[in-house]
């Protein structure tokens, strides 16, 4: 062999050595045309007992069975489609919604391309009283890619959760789906599409939902402000800049704030305020806050209490761009107060209370110290291929989607999640179907009011421990509510042993929950 040929051979071999692994990584990342979440990743029992009747299958618990080659163990007996609301009889609150895609005229008068519910965005606010049976019939008027509705923060039965490809098929044009649930959680919530959600929510397919306590709220009145960014335009309830809310001097006002954006929003005011609720759940003995902002997590809600001053309006700044101005209609609009340097720490805010006494809700009566399952949800970031696309993707416990844990519990378990973020960016983590209580951050125990969350902002370098009672069987998304991050692989699921889903995700199934 001539020197020249040997050289060419060597060069070709080196090229192959460089490209072959890349080609392999690319090929092995491709997702099938449709897949079941049951086939994703590997089972994680959190160190707890393996549920009875589960065949322990080495293949399924290894780290590489993500492509539909093996079914998860412990499935089969209950379909998510059967996990519906059992309450019968006529609904107390009945709402018909029609979703459309097209030009949207916002309350501010501005026109954007997006989505509407009953012709408007934000869609109609739903009001219920504690214990009401709510029935919402959703019809897809003209959204080609299909729609669903997810009741963000309301721990509905699994089949009512509205996740396309997991708990139902997306509702196609001309089709209907009826959601029913008992509104037994008092507080501020919202609902939004969970089909192609990173586009549909951004485009306006969402609305607020409030559950009032039977005895009414302790404040004199309430106002509600939904913050959303439409095509770069910052809005409150679809209006821009400072939005007026009439209230007489001296009244206490409950300001319900909903963050429908993909990023946290700091909130501060030009007068002392109390944070009376987080993610719908009341805090215990919240004190007055001055000189601090409170962070409103993406997807999260916060209720503030303020007292309207004499002869003036109060200004609650929702991020730098919008504000709720609460006060007499003839009061002058106050100037924007400067953003405080410091944020309120909910870990130490308010007074501790024994968990069972809070709210009187059954799903809060458990002791986190008895947790039998301890899950790790470590968020990282690395280059690789996601369904064939090269890029820099999020990882869960070091693995790229879909090779991520399937957190598995049994009904009645107390479980602890340790959420660690080493990914370089903050993530608003949202667990469907459950409320969790924050136990600690960076190893420091929570010493304030019980802090219940469904959406928790986890900053880079932070480590939270949260606990919840597994009392709502089904298959539940546990994902980042910065919705493009979910598209980039930051989606895991919490699964109850013995539950299976007939629905599938992917192009062939036309279900894209992210």
């Amino acid at each position: 062999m001539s020197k020249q040929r040997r050289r060419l051979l060597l060069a070709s071999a080196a090229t192959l050595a460089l490209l072959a692994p890349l080609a392999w990584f690319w090929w092995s990342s491709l997702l099938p045309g449709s897949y079941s979440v049951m086939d994703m990743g590997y089972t994680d029992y959190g160190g707890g007992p393996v549920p009875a009747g589960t065949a322990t299958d080495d293949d399924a618990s290894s780290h590489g069975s993500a492509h539909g080659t093996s079914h998860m163990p412990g499935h089969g007996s209950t379909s998510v489609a059967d996990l519906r609301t059992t309450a019968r009889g006529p609904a107390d609150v009945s709402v018909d919604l029609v979703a459309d895609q097209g030009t949207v005229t916002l309350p501010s008068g501005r026109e954007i391309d997006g989505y509407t519910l009953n012709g408007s965005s934000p869609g109609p606010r739903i009001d219920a009283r504690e214990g009401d049976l709510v029935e919402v019939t959703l019809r897809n008027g003209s959204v080609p890619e299909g729609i669903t509705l997810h009741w963000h923060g309301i721990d509905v039965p699994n089949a009512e959760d509205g996740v396309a490809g997991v708990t139902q098929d997306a509702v196609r044009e001309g089709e209907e789906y009826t959601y029913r649930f008992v509104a037994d959680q008092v507080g501020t919530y919202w609902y939004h599409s969970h089909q192609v959600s990173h586009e549909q929510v951004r485009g306006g397919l969402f609305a607020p939902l409030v559950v009032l306590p039977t005895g009414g709220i302790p404040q004199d009145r309430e106002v509600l402000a939904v913050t959303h960014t439409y095509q770069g335009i910052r809005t409150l309830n679809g209006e821009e800049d400072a939005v007026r809310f009439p209230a007489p001097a001296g009244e206490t006002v409950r300001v319900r704030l909903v963050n429908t954006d993909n990023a946290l929003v700091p909130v501060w005011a030009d007068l002392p305020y109390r944070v009376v609720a987080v993610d719908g759940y009341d805090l215990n003995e919240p004190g007055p806050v001055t000189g601090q902002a409170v962070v409103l997590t993406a997807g999260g809600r916060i209720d503030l209490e303020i007292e309207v001053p004499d002869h003036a309006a109060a200004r609650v700044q929702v991020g730098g761009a919008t504000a709720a101005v609460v006060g007499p209609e003839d009061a002058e609009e106050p100037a924007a107060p400067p953003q405080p340097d410091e944020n309120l720490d909910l870990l130490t805010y308010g007074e501790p209370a024994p968990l069972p006494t809070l709210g009187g809700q059954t799903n809060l009566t458990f002791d986190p110290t008895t947790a039998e399952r301890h899950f790790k949800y470590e968020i990282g970031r690395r280059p690789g291929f996601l369904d064939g696309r090269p890029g820099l993707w999020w990882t869960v416990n070091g693995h790229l989607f879909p090779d991520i844990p399937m957190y598995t519990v049994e009904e009645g378990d107390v479980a602890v999640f340790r959420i660690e973020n080493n990914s370089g960016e903050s993530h608003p983590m949202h667990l469907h179907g459950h409320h969790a209580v924050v136990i600690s951050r960076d190893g420091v125990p929570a010493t304030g009011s019980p802090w219940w969350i469904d959406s928790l902002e986890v900053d880079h370098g932070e480590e939270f421990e949260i606990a919840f009672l597994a009392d709502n069987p089904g298959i539940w998304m546990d994902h980042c509510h910065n919705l493009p991050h979910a598209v980039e692989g930051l989606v895991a699921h919490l699964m109850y042993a013995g539950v299976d889903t007939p629905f599938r995700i992917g192009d062939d199934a036309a279900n894209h929950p992210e």
Partner: protein
Amino acid sequence: MRSAYRILSYVLAAEIVIQAAAMVYAVAGLGKWVDGGGVLDKAAFESDDLSFTGVGGFIVHGINGMMIIPLLALILLIVSFFTKLPKAVVTAVGLLVLVVLQVVLGIVGHEIPASGALHGINALLIFAGALHAARLASTPKVVVEKETAAA
């Protein structure tokens, strides 16, 4: 292959120039936008809908830096296997390492701003390295003749 190596090296150097220009264009545009009352916070940043003169600079910088430049460095390395230039492979390996380091520094810079300063310095190293590589492939033909004679 020799001219492919030279052209790729020049393209890589030009890409670094584009990266620097795009970033300053974007930051200048952002400054002007904020000066005119625009509000930049995390929600605005994550909305994917920011529109001001210069916003394209951020997009160009991201696509170039995360996709096109690493791809160029990889192709340069492959091409280097087929050139007979001395030090072509070593130089291409060095450039690829610097490019990977550059991506890492850029991303870490989101959390540790000092890393962004190193990102700026490393850009100059890549630029110089790319020019060096281009000149390797355009040195007088004597080298080739010598090699041919030796073979």
